């Protein structure tokens, strides 16, 4: 066992850290205040990331990515997690599900996404189908050799900046011993396709400026060439490619927790009440101790899950544990940090309240904490027949 980073990994971490500190931090307050990322700023960040060769670094070299391992990519995302999500969105990491592109789709979607020319968004969730993805009612039916899509998706992150969307819809129902089960197909839909509209979603307390959108499909007609993967094979592509995205949530939670922790630590060492630094009160010191212990635990849990993926070992349970623990850790750490800052922690003069708000969504998206627990329990109990 070896817990250290290689020289390359050290450099990747320090480069991304520097980038986030110098190119992201200075703009965070403005994004927070306005709830939007100025287009010039977004384009500037993207340009720099492309020049640095970090854009789409999660993709293999064969398609123009950097071919980072899951572990190396986790280190990148851990550093990105320190910065505003609205801004780091432009440190592009297209959905790796685009690797399922075939034929023409490679030139039209995969390669432009990797080059940073076209941005993507991924749409599964619907007002009536969240955790229960298979319960979706968005559908596509055959009509004159085409597919016709109808229905609504909501909570779709980044769709405001997306040039195309990767959408999962129902394409039929199978009768199974467990009752009817929907067949799902994945489609690539260009912005501007007739019958497809992207409209603003809700205002979220978490990650201001990182918008979620509502997608409406109203008789949206698509040829077969827009099917990603196989017809009715939506779950197969989902399972093959979206499996690892929970690591993103976990690593970003760890990065953000470290940033908040450093601020809380410094405050505890500086702020004086009752004639001494508040860190000297056991009540505060022990909070600090618990915070760092949990951050380290989440960090190793996450890196170990990424490492398992690189080794080709089963990792579903471990990824679920990492996502669950890291997102819940972040909630506790940001709450304690806010407490250590006292009243000022709540004020938007400091970024603490933002981290505290931002933390909330991590337990919900990419599968809620309950769903992760369900995955973990099922993984362990099902082989035992329970």
């Amino acid at each position, binding site marked *: 066992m070896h817990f250290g980073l290689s*020289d390359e990994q*050290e*450099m990747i971490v320090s*480069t991304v850290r520097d980038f986030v500190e110098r190119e992201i931090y200075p703009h965070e307050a403005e994004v927070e205040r306005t709830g939007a990322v100025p287009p010039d700023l977004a384009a500037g960040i993207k340009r720099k990331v492309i*020049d640095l*060769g970090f854009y789409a670094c999660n993709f293999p070299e064969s398609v123009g990515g*950097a071919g980072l391992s899951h572990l190396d990519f986790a280190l990148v995302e851990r550093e990105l997690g320190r910065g505003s999500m609205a801004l780091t969105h432009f440190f592009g990491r297209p959905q790796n599900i685009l690797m399922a592109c075939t034929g023409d789709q490679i030139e039209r979607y995969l390669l432009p996404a990797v080059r940073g020319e076209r941005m993507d968004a991924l749409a599964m969730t619907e007002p009536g189908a969240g955790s229960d993805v298979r319960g979706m009612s968005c559908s596509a039916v055959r009509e004159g050799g085409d597919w016709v899509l109808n229905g609504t998706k909501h909570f779709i992150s980044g769709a405001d900046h997306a040039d195309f969307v990767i959408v999962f819809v129902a394409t039929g129902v199978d009768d199974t011993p467990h009752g009817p089960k929907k067949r799902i197909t994945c489609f690539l839909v260009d912005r501007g396709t007739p019958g497809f509209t992207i409209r603003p979603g809700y205002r979220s307390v978490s990650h201001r400026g990182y918008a979620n959108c509502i997608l409406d499909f109203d008789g949206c007609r698509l040829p077969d060439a827009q099917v990603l993967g196989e017809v009715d094979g939506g779950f197969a592509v989902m399972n093959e490619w979206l499996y690892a995205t929970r690591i993103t949530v976990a690593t970003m939670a760890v990065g953000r927790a470290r940033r908040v922790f450093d601020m809380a630590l410094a405050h505890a060492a500086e702020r004086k009440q009752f004639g001494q630094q508040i860190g000297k009160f056991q009540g505060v010191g022990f909070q600090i101790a618990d915070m760092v212990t949990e951050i380290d635990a989440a960090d190793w849990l996450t890196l170990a899950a990424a490492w398992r993926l690189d080794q080709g070992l089963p990792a579903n349970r471990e990824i679920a544990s990492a996502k669950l623990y890291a997102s819940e850790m972040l909630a506790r750490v940001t709450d304690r940090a806010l407490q250590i800052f006292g009243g000022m922690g709540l004020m938007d003069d400091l970024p603490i309240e933002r981290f505290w708000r931002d933390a909330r969504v991590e337990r919900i998206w990419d599968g809620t904490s309950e769903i992760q627990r369900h995955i973990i329990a099922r993984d362990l109990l099902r082989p035992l027949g329970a």
Partner: protein
Amino acid sequence: MKVLVPVKRVIDYNVKVRVKADGSGVDLANVKMSMNPFDEIAVEEAIRMKEKGAVEEVIAVSIGVKQAQETLRTALAMGADRAILVVAADDVHQDIEPLAVAKILKAVAEAEGVGMVLCGKQAIDNDMNATGQMLAALLGWSQATFASKIEIEGEEAKVTREVDGGLQTIKVKMPAIVSVDLRLNEPRYASLPNIMKAKKKPLDEKTPADFGVDVTPRLSVVKTTEPEARKAGVMVGSVDELIAKLKDEAGVI
């Protein structure tokens, strides 16, 4: 022309420096170390010269503990072509003094046949601001310190220097030692492909003995202390009050 860029591993500029309990120096155990920021500027300048075609090869050299290898890898990831590590100390707390460093650099510069040495004006740990000047004296080359602009014009270099009260432009004969200042350039981030390539670039390891240099300290540190804490300021109510205080209390106007 080959350019030699000495890079020093120093305590990261973001780290809050702590003096060791016995006052023998600054505590460097378990603190983040980075490339001296002025050296980063020198590396950047050398790479830009290479990109402009004025330089064929950029060689980074570091003298210190074995871990300075990381600093050299950073220089390689930024774009230096190869690196030389002179392992001159085992303990991270042992600083190699400017004269010894200058002697080693002289030997390296001669062995490599470089036409220029670009160095940081000082290292942010000890703030000596001496190595470049000593090296110029030892080599008998021209020197230009505190550069904020460097233009190579054939056998000469035109260097703009940051001096008290303004800028001074001088011409020096090549070969030359140029020590760089903060405003010369803004160092780039290492690109991901260059980070991956850095490992494959040559990094030679040497010792001071290879150059016949004795690095035994000639100076002794008597005491290290923290700077005095800044006293709290006072808020003044008006410009008049400020002027009155500057006149009567501070006596500066």
